[in-house]
C-alpha cells in the first residue's frame, strides 16, 4: 500500500524531508527540483508509513486505496514520473 501525491501539492519540501526511504522526487539533489510544480511518490519504494501525510502542509497526499475520485488519475501520474525519470 503506497501513498500518492495529488493536485494540491505545492512542491513543498516537507514530505521529502520526513520520508524514511527517500521515495519522493525530485529531491534537492535531483534535476528539476528548483522548478518542480509538484512532487511524486515512487510506488515501488513507498512503504506506506504515512509520515509524509502528516508533514504535508496542504493535505495533498492520499493513501492509494482511499484517493478521492477527482484525483484518481494521480496514481498514474506518480508512477509515470518514475517511469520517465528512472529510479533514484
Amino acid at each position, binding site marked *: *500500500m503506497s501513498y500518492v501525491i495529488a493536485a494540491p501539492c505545492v512542491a513543498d519540501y*516537507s514530505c521529502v*524531508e*520526513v*520520508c*524514511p*526511504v527517500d521515495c519522493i522526487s525530485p529531491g534537492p539533489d535531483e534535476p528539476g527540483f528548483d522548478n518542480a510544480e509538484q512532487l511524486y511518490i515512487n510506488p515501488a519504494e513507498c*512503504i*506506506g*508509513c*504515512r*509520515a509524509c501525510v*502528516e*508533514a504535508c502542509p496542504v493535505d495533498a497526499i492520499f493513501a492509494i*486505496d*482511499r484517493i478521492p475520485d477527482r484525483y484518481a488519475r494521480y496514481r498514474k501520474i506518480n508512477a509515470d514520473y518514475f517511469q520517465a525519470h528512472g529510479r533514484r
Partner: protein
Amino acid sequence: MDQPSAAIEPVEKRLFCGICEASCGLVATVAGDEVVKLRPDPDHPNSRGFACSKGISFPDVRRDPDRILHPLRRQPDGSFTPVSWQEALDDIGSRLRGVIDGHGRESFGVYGGNPLVWNYAAFLTAFGMAAALGTKHFFSSSSTDVNNYFAVGELLYGHNMSNPVPDLARTDFFLCLGANPVVSHGSMMNVGRVRETMLEITQRDGRVVVVDPRRTETAELFEHVPIYPSGDVWLLAAMLKVILDEGRYDRAALVEMTRGHETLTALVSGVDLERAARETGIAIERIIDLARDFAAAPSAVVYGRCGASLGPFATLTKYLIDVLNIATGNLDRPGGWCFGRPWLPLEKITALLKVNGYDRWRTRVDGIPELLGTSPLISLPREIRTPGKGQLRALLVVSGNPVLASPASGEIESAIQELDLLVSIDPYINDTSRHAHYVLPPTLWLERDGLPIYTQAWAAVPYAQWVPATVPAPGDVRDDWWILDEICKRIGIVPSPAPGAQLLGRLGIRFKPPLVFDLMLRLGPEGDLFGLRRGGLSRRKLMANTGGVKLADGLPTGVRHKAVHHKDHRVHLDHPVIASEMRRLIAGPERDDPEYPLRLFSVRELRSHNSWLQNVPKLMAGDRVQRLLIHPDDAQELGIDDGDEVEIASRHGRITAPARVTDEVMRGSVGLPHGWGHRGGWRRAVAAGGSIYNLLTTNAPAEVDVPTGNAVLNGVAVRVRPVERIQRY
C-alpha cells in the same frame, strides 16, 4: 565500524523490528559492521511488507553520536566519566552488598521499561532477579497503561498474560475503543497490515466503529463516535446493561464457557443510561443502537487499548470489554475474541513457577495489590521516602525513563535522587539516567539475538521467529542480560525464580537465556521434542530461516479448554474486586469541576515511541513540536488562536504548549502528545523542547485504578488559558 561500506559486498539479512508490538519483518542490507538500509520484509508471515518510519530509521540510533558506548560514572558535579566494566560492576556490587547487609534484599528494587519486552533475555533475567531477591520493589512501565489487562487476565482466565485478541480477519463488527491502530500499529494485538485488515472489514460489508475523543487517523477511515476521555467504562457498562436487560445475550455460550455469569445482571443493575450518556457525551439512543447492533452481528468484537486503560476505572473497563465479547457469544469463535497460538509455552511455565498472580501481597506503603510480582510506579516515590523495614534504597532501571513516563513525574525525579544507589542500563543519558550513579550501555536490537517474546502468543497470523544479531555491537556495550547477571553474581544470587536455581548457582552452574528459551521452544507446542516430533521447531531451525516460520493462516478457535488456566477451564466472571469497582463507579460524583473544566487525553504520534526516539534526525524532521489540540469553540471561548502559547493546568501541576485549534478533538476535551520535554545528553531530543505531560498527573492511590494502581493519564481535569493573559494579570 569505520570501514567504508563501498569496499564491502553488501549482504541482505532478514529480521524483525524490535521497537513496538507490531514486530514487523525487516530486510537489512548489511555492509561490514553497518546496517546501510532497512526495508519491510514482503515475505514476513504476519507483517507482509509493512514497516514504519521508526523501524526504518533505527540504524540512526545505532550510530547516534549521543549514544553511550562505555560505562559511565557520575561525578559530584553531575558530569559523567567513562570507567571500565570491571570497575563499574565491582563498585555497584560492593555498594549493593552494603545496602543489602544493612537493610535486607527487599531494599533493592528493579524497574523495567517498555523495551524489555523486545529483549527476551533481559526480560527473563530481570524477572528472575526480582524473584531471587524476593523484593516487592519490582516496578514496570506496564503500570502506566496495561496493568488492567494483566489483572483481568488473571481474574477471568487464570493467568496475567492470557490475552484474547480481536479476530479482525473474520469479524463482521469491530468496535475499537481508545485505540488508533493506523498510527500505533496495534497494541495487545498483533495484526499485520492492520490498516488494510480493518478496511477489509468494511469492504466485506462489516462495520468498524471507532470510539475516541479525537477523530484519529483510524477514526477518519470508519464510523467515528466521539467520547469524553475515560468515558469508556460508562459506554461499556451501559451496553452490557442493554444487552442483558433486552435478553440479547448468548445464554448457551455463558452457560458452557463461564462460571458466575448469573451475577452479571446484578453487576450492571445500578448503571443509569442517562448518566452514561452524560459521562460519555454519547446520546442514549446511540448507546442502545450500538449495543443492539453489536449483539445482532453474526460475529462481533470489542477491543480497547490505551485510551481505555488510562482512566481511574481501567480494570473495570477491561473486564467489561471481555464480558461484552463473552456474553454475546464471541469468545473463542471466528471473528470474535480469540486466544492465540503460542509457540513458547510462557504462560504454562510461569504458572508452574508461580510467577503469575494477583493480590498475593500488598505494597508496603500504599497497600496496593501485587500483580505479576510487581508494584505500581505510582508508589515508587513513597517507597523511597517512607522509612521502615523494606524502604527502597537502591534501584536498577533497565531501559526505562520513569522521570518522563511516570505519573507525577516531578516527584519521581526528586525521590530517585535520595536513593543510596541508582543504576541505569540505557543507551542514552536520558531524563532519568542523568541522575544515576552509573549508566551502563546495552546492545540494541540490531546487535543481539531476538524473538518476539511479548506478542508471540497472539499474532493474527501465528508465526515463530528467532534471529541472530544482525551486526556486531559497537564500542564497549554489552547485552542487558549479561549486565544484570554480572550484578547478580556480585550480590550472590542467580536471576531465576526456579527452585534449585540458587543451589546450582552455588555450584557455579547458570543457564544462559538462549538455552532456557531453546528448551522452552523445543518442549513447547511447536517444538521438535529433541527429535521426537518431525518438523518441530528449535532455535537452530528458526535461525536457519530468520524471516519467520508461519504456523497457521489465522487465529485458532475452539481452544478455550487449552487456553483457560482455571482448573475448570471456564472463564470466571464473579469477582468481589469487580463488584466493588462498579459500586465505586456508580457512587462517584459526576465529573463537573468548574475550576478545571476540560479533560485532557494523551495522543500517540506516528514518529514517536513512548519516551524515546526523539533523538533520531529523520523522526524529528519537519520541525516537529508538541502542540495542545483544542476544539475551535473551546478555543474561541478562551480567547486562543491557532499557534498561541497556552498554559495547561491541573490540580497537580502546570505546563505550557502552543495550541493547535482543530475540530478533530471533541468539545470539552484537549489532546496532548506525551514523551516531550526531554533533558539529559540526547541533544536533539532536548532541543526539540516541549513539556512533560506527566507533570499534570497524579500518583495518589485513591485517584488511580484502585485494583492495580495503574496510572491515570487520561481524563485529567485541566484548565487552559493563553500564556499572555497569565502574564498580564
